């Protein structure tokens, strides 16, 4: 475990991508195969089920350290990470750790413990704690609680493996995707693709776009580019192979079961087909065209195991196809986009399925015309325009040059900060999580939380303000003198009865600190409601 803890430590603290790459290469060159498989599994989101909830971990820790619950919580709010808090609070092992177990041992023990009683789980965890250093305990706790976000992207790991195996990064990215089980696959089979059974479910790594650069339209000829609307759902791949249908989300999660609307595609799509597109809630009343529902509708479908009839009627899900990357059993990612587009158009028109649409191409003869059209994005329920080079192949990951996103400006509202809470991760022990309010007559009504958008320096200034101007303390939350005004930006607004304000925002964040505005100059609840009305009316019209 020490070797893995060391790796996590370097990945978490190093500020240079190259150091992380070297650390991973070193790990993959020296660790044993079982451990390596699990590292790949964890970094691609294939972790064992959580064997206990975090509440229990916390209780067992408190039992050992004999400190009051509130002091544990106070510590947690300062550290901003539960796994780390527990690791810091527990005593160091009495003897130098003689613990020789590797990563695979712990993860595989988790799997065997899944069905055991709580007592047995507790015993295992508490015993393990006693043998580990603080750093190892942190990593062990992280393995239990999940959420292993330690400053390394999957891309860096793929690059490390590519270097080591002398294969291309896109080949590695493809091989480690899909449906494989770390318990049964061995390291060289996974990377060399010599596994006995071909995996029919395996998706391709997604190609992701960068935000458009400023001088783009001056440099480029519009005739080389295909423009489409940028839809706001979940990016996904629909795979039909061997008479089976698989649906993957961009987070490399197999979501076939969640969207029964796609079931029919199993019979309708030809075998050996992979479509890239957007999983999105659509208004099904429109014939031959489609209108997306607000993202909030799709949200009711995510994270649910069992879907009710009501959800199916209120938030029906369709698929807007962008691209075809496997056709007739062949990987066609290297064909130019315009050829893939022809195949896609043909396929979608021949597939008679109510929820399957092709992402329409926007016709514009020059950049100014397109710029005009972009302003109407919100009217189509889209969040801007995508630009794709007509002769581009389908690349792996986020690559500059061929695909660009050109998003519309967000909606904004001026609001005052009323609550603050300490952040997590690199914002630990710093007030960085804020709640904002608008005016409703004499009262203030909270309507959004935001955690991002300020520079480190500004966060430090706000933190200082919070420490000096807090009025009351409710657990980790401080109520703050309503004095600082910020412009809050967001992508969409929907009605909500869960929120006091009656609205829910999409992607709220701080756009800028309005030093120039006083709290009595902020927007009102009325303004928000008007925005909601405008937005909803637009959503009701069809394109």
């Amino acid at each position, binding site marked *: 475990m020490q070797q893995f803890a060391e790796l996590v430590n370097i990945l978490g603290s*190093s*500020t240079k991508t190259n150091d992380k790459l070297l650390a991973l290469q070193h790990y993959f060159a020296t660790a044993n195969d079982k451990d390596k498989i699990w590292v790949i599994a964890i970094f691609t989101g294939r972790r064992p089920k959580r064997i206990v909830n975090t509440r229990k971990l916390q209780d067992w820790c408190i039992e050992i350290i004999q400190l009051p619950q509130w*002091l544990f919580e106070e510590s947690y709010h*300062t550290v901003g990470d539960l796994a780390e808090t527990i690791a*810091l609070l527990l005593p160091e092992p009495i003897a130098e750790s003689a613990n020789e177990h590797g990563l695979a041992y712990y993860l595989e023990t988790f799997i065997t413990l899944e069905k055991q009683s709580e007592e047995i789980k507790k015993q295992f965890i508490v015993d393990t704690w006693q043998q580990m250093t603080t750093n190892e305990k942190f990593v062990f706790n992280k393995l239990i609680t999940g959420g292993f976000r330690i400053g390394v992207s999957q891309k860096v790991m793929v690059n490390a493996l590519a270097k080591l195996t002398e294969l291309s990064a896109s080949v590695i990215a493809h091989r480690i995707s899909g449906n494989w089980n770390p318990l049964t696959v061995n390291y060289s089979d996974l990377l060399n693709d010599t596994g006995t059974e071909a995996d029919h479910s395996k998706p391709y790594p997604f190609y992701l776009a960068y935000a458009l650069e400023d001088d783009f339209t001056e440099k480029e000829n519009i005739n080389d580019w295909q423009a489409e609307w940028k839809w706001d759902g979940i990016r996904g791949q629909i795979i039909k192979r061997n008479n089976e249908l698989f649906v993957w989300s961009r987070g490399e999660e197999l979501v076939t079961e969640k969207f029964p609307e796609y079931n029919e595609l199993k019979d309708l799509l030809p075998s050996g087909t992979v479509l890239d597109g957007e999983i999105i809630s659509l208004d099904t009343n429109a014939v031959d065209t489609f209108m997306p529902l607000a993202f909030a509708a799709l949200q009711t479908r995510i994270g649910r195991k069992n879907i009710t009839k009501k959800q199916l009627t209120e938030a029906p899900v369709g698929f807007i196809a962008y691209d075809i990357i496997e056709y007739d059993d062949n990987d066609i990612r290297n064909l130019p986009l315009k050829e893939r587009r022809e195949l896609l158009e043909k396929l979608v028109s021949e597939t008679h399925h109510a929820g399957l649409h092709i992402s329409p191409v926007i016709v514009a003869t020059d950049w100014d015309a397109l710029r005009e059209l972009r302003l109407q994005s919100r009217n189509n329920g889209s969040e801007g325009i995508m630009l794709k080079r007509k002769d581009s192949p389908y690349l792996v990951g986020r690559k500059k040059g061929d695909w660009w996103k050109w998003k519309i400006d967000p909606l904004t509202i001026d609001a005052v900060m009323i609550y603050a809470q300490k952040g997590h991760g690199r*914002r630990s022990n710093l007030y960085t999580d804020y709640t904002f309010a608008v005016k409703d007559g004499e009262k203030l009504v909270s309507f959004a939380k935001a955690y991002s958008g300020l520079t480190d320096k500004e966060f430090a200034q706000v933190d200082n303000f919070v420490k000096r101007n807090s009025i009351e303390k409710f657990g980790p939350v401080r109520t703050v003198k309503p004095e600082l005004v910020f412009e809050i930006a967001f992508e969409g607004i929907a009605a909500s009865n869960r929120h006091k304000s009656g609205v829910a925002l999409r992607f709220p964040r701080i756009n800028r600190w309005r030093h120039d505005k006083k709290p009595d100059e902020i927007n009102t609840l009325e303004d928000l409601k008007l925005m909601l009305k405008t937005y909803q009316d637009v959503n009701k019209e069809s394109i």
Partner: protein
Amino acid sequence: MALIEFSEKGLYCRKGDFYIDPWKPVKKAVITHAHSDHARWGSEYYLCHHFTKPLLQLRLGTNNYQSVEWNETVMMNNVKISLHPAGHIIGSSQIRVECEGEVWVVSGDYKTENDGLSSAFEPVKCNTFITESTFGLPIYKWKPQQQIFNNIKNWIIQNNKEGKTSVLIAYSLGKAQRILQPLAETGLPIFAHGAVYNIHETLINNGWKLPEVKRIEAHTASELIKGNIVIAPPGADGSPWMKRFYPYSVGICSGWMQVRGNARRKNTDAGFALSDHADWEGLLQAVKATGAEKVYATHGFQSAFSRYLDEQGIEAAEIKTEYGEEDDEVKTEE
């Protein structure tokens, strides 16, 4: 009336008519130690330990200073004042105040581990103890300094192998001197930022024996420094001044490095949780050793620490002071 009051200029003893570490100019100031949030400019008279005096002269200029030995009594009206080692930095003192049989002790900043340089912390019996609580949460547990020193040395040797300069961020008064001995043990030359060097020179001139340090001048050749050791104060971290050391690795020596998020926020290559303040256990031990019936906790996690003491049967309350609040807490002296 309380022997020491919490006034807007600082901790005030009315019977003796003096302040302890006032944050505004006063007539008489008793100073715990020479860090800038405790020793401020503008008072008419300063009382401090012999070791602290040259440091105050360096930082505050010429003033009316009186300095004393540990345990030496100074009378102000009928109040007895004496200074006792706090173990925080060179010269750092707890202030004992006694009047009509009642004893109060103001801790200033302190640590309970003997660092071999600052005179070791001595608990002083009292009725009321005013304690700092910078690291008053149980997540703060320091490793023995020798272990941290070994980590620092290994890190430096590794950097040297890779041809990188090791830049250690340490507060110029206190931490910078404390790490000198282990740094010297690597056998590599040690270079210092001007702010660090000024303190160093003052101490050497006052008879302190410290390993050799070279001042970094504008004309110092980068080749001389390459692969060796640089000590710089927190303010220099990330400044253009650092560019000349490229390729380098930065290591911050601060108790705040105990928590990963802090180290990540500072974008540092290495964090060493080496602190000149007491950790959770140190604070508890210190409080118990005073035998105080009443404890006031100031600067730091005072509300958590005083609540815990209260629950343990030691009457405690938090007070607000202006210590440790000058800068962002991560940057601040420590």
